[in-house]
């Protein structure tokens, strides 16, 4: 059948009509010639031909593309049915939207964390070099410039380019980013110091201006130029088209902007947005970087990128690297670690996160994928369930349509069309949900001074995946009821209007309710575990009193202060801050407990020899001002606080925490003992006091040894002013900001209350995020379970109206009816709960490491959550059961 004829079938129909008319004319004429009257002749002709309308219809049908024609009918009819049942439609579409949307958002995040490639040329060939220490993740990836030069000389030819780079700020011994001054205002900027070939190794082209020349960066402080990232150029310089050639100051050093990087390139690191690139030699403008660092083999602050040659793999290059690493270790020994040799480690998106086993991101991703798939399954089951219930409710309708002559195939297709229309609506709503959720995830605010970027994008591929999963499941869900509905026992259905229950379908529905309760319970338990974990992390004694403490972090080095000038600045600031009204105490520290940074390193303790193969004795440390422990509310258990008199000219002193005293001087008095830091000074440090343990690194690990030295003896440019006050945090912060402004107007200050600071990435952030995300998913699961249980139960009651009527007429008591109806639902719920507990237990093993203060089989969580779900499910059972009590026996019996 040609398509052409399909569109011309009206014309064809007319042609046929003419042909049939011609037959009638000829036959009538012949009949007349045989001697019939005109009237008789026409009647006889019609008899001979048959019904012309039927014939035309038959030919018309032969000409039509039946599928398209009936599809359109199906769609119109389906739309009418969906409009007629707005409650069912809304619930089904909402369910699908939540399932698809939640999964799209989760997968978008996972995709970004795990699979997205760097926007550079052939990202898969990029590797970074590192000494392997056991597992692939335990690598030592820090090199010095002489080491970089030797590696390039020995095996640079085996690669398609090799570049070295160092983070500005943190790696220079600071704890915060650098500062960029433009038009009299200084703001923190994340810098990256790179060798001249960095951009060409990545294969990037500048959006404006130029990148660095190969030799730029090879000598200290010689190339005062910078390249901005596209996004930073947009936000800080409003996309100024004439930016090239303008000058800014970085840490007070004037540099010229020579280029702007390509759009969408945030740097090669995970999360951290690199805003300005400078030649490697300019690292000297960072505090704590020595002018001669390029020549020092112990200044190991560089990472090395190496691009594999086309067609070679990281494994093929290993023998060459083994040779190089032997030479390297012989010439520049790395004393404290047992290293296995150098490897080229693939650069995993979105940066140096390797996706091999043990990667915490991989496991987090796995957990959320599991939870997301659970939600999707629940959604699918729910829709399937709704369709089943509805199909049964429409048995009479289907029977009537079949009795009126609808073909079985048509009925099936009609039902499937309706499922598909639902899926389509759900898909549209799912896109909306997914977009909103993805944006919400991307907008998560991290309380940190570092420029962190979440670049989640709505992932259409993922969306297509979730969509096809739902489509498939709603089709599967639609097929069973469609097949059954289309094979109605006409007689039975039309006669008793479907009084008898088909037990097979009932069983399928029961199975689904059980699955829903099980899935929902496991989601809720995981959510409960995360919430409990957050609670216990929050309640755990951090060892200091974070309330009423405000933090003001600043870095005079960002505006070009020398160390001496910085010291004077802080002295003045501290004095004047202490004099402010409402300030109880004020002090300085190089870093905030559980903040963005931590300092730690090896120490030498008299009498403790480092054992070969064992980690060198080490401790965290902080540089603080006198009064720090008072401000933080940490009791000094032994000895004295630091004093103003502890200065550069007096002996070096430190306070230590109880953990350090117990670890290195067990059972002895640590006071008066000495230790030293194996650096260039190697000065003995005398212990003058011991403080109570408090949390410094994160809220859950065991407390490790730590010591506290005076800022006057160990100066750091980035310092946080802690202020304990009686009044509101914001009021105090305002006062101090005015104070800073009067001393140094261009000084950038990052403010937070201590409670806010503790919500950071190293504090409670991950716990809170986990609790919120799983809470949302658990809530989704709960809603889906309620809808599922309620739907099936109320349907089952409506089907048993007749039976209930008879029982009541025969004298059944209300309690008996309630039991009768409720028992079935409660059985399903109980079975679902039992399975759910088992599933949750399995998932719990996966998240075990993310939990603080509770185990993965935390009994209270299991009990409370199960009880909650049981109560909710019982309520969902009981509402329809109670409506069964309102059945009027007379009506019920007469009705049928």
């Amino acid at each position: 059948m040609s398509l052409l004829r399909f569109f011309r079938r009206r014309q064809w129909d007319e042609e046929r009509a003419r042909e049939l008319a011609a037959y009638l004319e000829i036959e009538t004429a012949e009949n007349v010639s045989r001697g019939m009257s005109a009237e008789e002749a026409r009647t006889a002709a019609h008899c001979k031909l048959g019904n012309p309308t039927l014939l035309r219809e038959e030919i018309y049908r032969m000409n039509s593309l039946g599928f398209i024609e009936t599809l359109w009918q199906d769609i119109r009819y389906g739309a009418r049915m969906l409009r007629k049942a707005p409650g069912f439609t809304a619930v089904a579409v909402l369910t699908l939207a939540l399932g698809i949307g939640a999964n799209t958002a989760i997968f978008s995040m996972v995709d970004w964390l795990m699979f997205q490639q760097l926007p550079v040329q052939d990202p898969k060939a990029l590797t970074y070099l590192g000494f392997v220490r056991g597992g692939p993740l335990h690598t030592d990836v820090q090199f010095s410039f002489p080491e970089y030069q030797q590696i390039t000389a020995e095996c640079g030819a085996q690669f398609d380019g090799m570049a070295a780079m160092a983070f500005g700020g943190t790696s220079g011994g600071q704890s915060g980013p650098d500062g960029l001054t433009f038009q009299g205002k200084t703001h923190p900027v994340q810098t990256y110091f790179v060798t001249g070939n960095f951009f060409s190794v990545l294969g990037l082209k500048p959006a404006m201006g130029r990148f660095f020349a190969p030799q730029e960066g090879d000598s200290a402080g010689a190339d005062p130029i910078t390249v901005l990232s596209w996004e930073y150029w947009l936000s800080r310089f409003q996309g100024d088209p004439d930016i090239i050639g303008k000058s800014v100051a970085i840490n007070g050093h004037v540099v010229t902007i020579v280029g702007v990087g390509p759009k969408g390139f945030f740097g090669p690191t995970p999360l951290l947005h690199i805003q300005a690139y400078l030649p490697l030699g300019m690292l000297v403008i960072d505090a704590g970087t020595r002018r001669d660092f390029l020549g020092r083999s112990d200044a190991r602050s560089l990472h090395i990128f190496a691009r594999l040659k086309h067609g070679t793999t990281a494994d093929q290059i290993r023998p060459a690297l083994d040779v190089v690493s032997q030479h390297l270790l012989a010439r520049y020994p790395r004393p404290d670690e047992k290293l296995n040799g150098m490897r080229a480690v693939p650069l995993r998106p979105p940066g140096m996160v390797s996706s091999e086993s043990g990667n915490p991101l991989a496991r987090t991703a796995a957990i959320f994928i599991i939870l997301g798939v659970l939600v999707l399954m629940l959604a699918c089951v729910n829709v399937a369930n709704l369709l089943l219930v509805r199909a049964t409710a429409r048995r009479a309708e289907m029977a009537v349509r079949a009795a009126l002559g609808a073909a079985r195939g048509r009925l099936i297709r009609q039902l499937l069309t309706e499922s598909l229309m639902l899926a389509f609506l759900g898909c549209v709503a799912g896109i909306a949900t997914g977009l909103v959720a993805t944006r919400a995830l991307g907008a998560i605010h991290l309380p940190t001074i570092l420029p962190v970027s979440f670049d989640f994008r709505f992932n259409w591929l993922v969306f297509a995946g979730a969509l096809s999963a739902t489509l498939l499941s709603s089709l599967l869900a639609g097929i069973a009821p469609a097949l059954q509905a289309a094979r109605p026992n006409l007689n039975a259905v039309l006669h008793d209007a479907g009084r008898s229950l088909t037990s097979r379908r009932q069983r399928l529905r029961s199975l689904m309710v059980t699955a829903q309760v099980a899935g929902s319970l496991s989601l809720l338990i995981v959510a409960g575990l995360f919430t409990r974990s957050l609670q216990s992390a929050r309640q755990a004694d951090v060892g200091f009193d974070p309330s009423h403490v405000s933090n003001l972090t600043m870095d005079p080095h960002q505006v070009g202060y020398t160390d001496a000038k910085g010291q004077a600045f802080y002295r003045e600031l501290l004095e004047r801050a202490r004099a402010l009204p409402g300030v109880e105490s004020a002090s300085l520290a190089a870093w905030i407990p559980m903040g963005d940074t931590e300092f730690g390193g090896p120490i030498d303790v008299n009498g403790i020899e480092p054992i070969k193969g064992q980690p060198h004795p080490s401790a965290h440390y902080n540089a603080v001002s006198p009064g720090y422990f008072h401000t933080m509310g940490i009791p000094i258990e032994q000895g004295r606080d630091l004093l103003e008199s502890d200065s550069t000219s007096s002996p070096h002193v430190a306070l230590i925490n109880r953990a350090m005293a117990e670890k290195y001087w067990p059972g002895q008095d640590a006071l008066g003992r000495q230790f030293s830091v194996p650096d260039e000074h190697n000065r003995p440090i005398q212990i003058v006091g011991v403080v109570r343990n408090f949390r410094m690194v994160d809220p859950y690990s065991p407390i490790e040894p730590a010591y506290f030295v005076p800022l006057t003896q160990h100066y750091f440019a980035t310092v946080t002013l802690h202020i304990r006050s009686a009044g509101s945090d914001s009021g105090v912060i305002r006062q101090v900001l005015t104070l800073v402004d009067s001393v140094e107007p261009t000084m950038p200050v990052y403010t937070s209350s201590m409670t806010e600071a503790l919500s950071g990435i190293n504090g409670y952030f991950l716990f809170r995020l986990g609790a919120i995300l799983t809470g949302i998913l658990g809530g989704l699961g709960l809603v889906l379970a309620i809808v599922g249980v309620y739907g099936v139960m109320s349907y089952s009651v409506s089907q048993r109206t007749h039976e209930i009527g008879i029982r009541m007429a025969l004298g059944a008591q209300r309690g008996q009816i309630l039991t009768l109806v409720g028992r079935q639902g409660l059985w399903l719920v109980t079975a679902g709960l039992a399975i759910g507990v088992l599933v949750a237990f399995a998932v719990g093993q996966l998240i075990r490491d993310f939990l603080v203060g509770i185990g993965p089989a935390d009994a209270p969580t299991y009990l409370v959550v199960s009880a909650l779900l049981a109560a909710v499910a019982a309520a969902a059972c009981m509402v329809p059961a109670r409506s069964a009590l309102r059945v009027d026996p007379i009506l019920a019996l007469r009705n049928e």
Partner: protein
Amino acid sequence: MPKRGAHPLQGEVLQGTLDLLVLQTLVLGPAHGHTIAYAIEHRSDDVLQVEHGSLYPALHRLEDRKWIASFWGTSENNRKARYYRLTPAGRKQLAVQTSRWEQLVNAINRVLRPQSE
């Protein structure tokens, strides 16, 4: 697309049979529907009583398969009528169907009268 074949001639004559008869009729030359219907009736000695209308869907189907072609002409008694003629493809098809029909008839005959001849 559902196959809704022509109504059987009368009783249980197979659908393909009507096609065969139509094609065979047209071997003699072009004819219009009325003539074809009567030709089938007469040549079967009135055994095959055709409801003449059922012929038209069959004609349509055959034309659709390009076994016959149609044109408007004038009938013996000067009336406009739609004429059908056999196409080369139709001639080939007729040969195929005829031999298949004969095979079928022979087979059935052998079953019904195994001892005869």
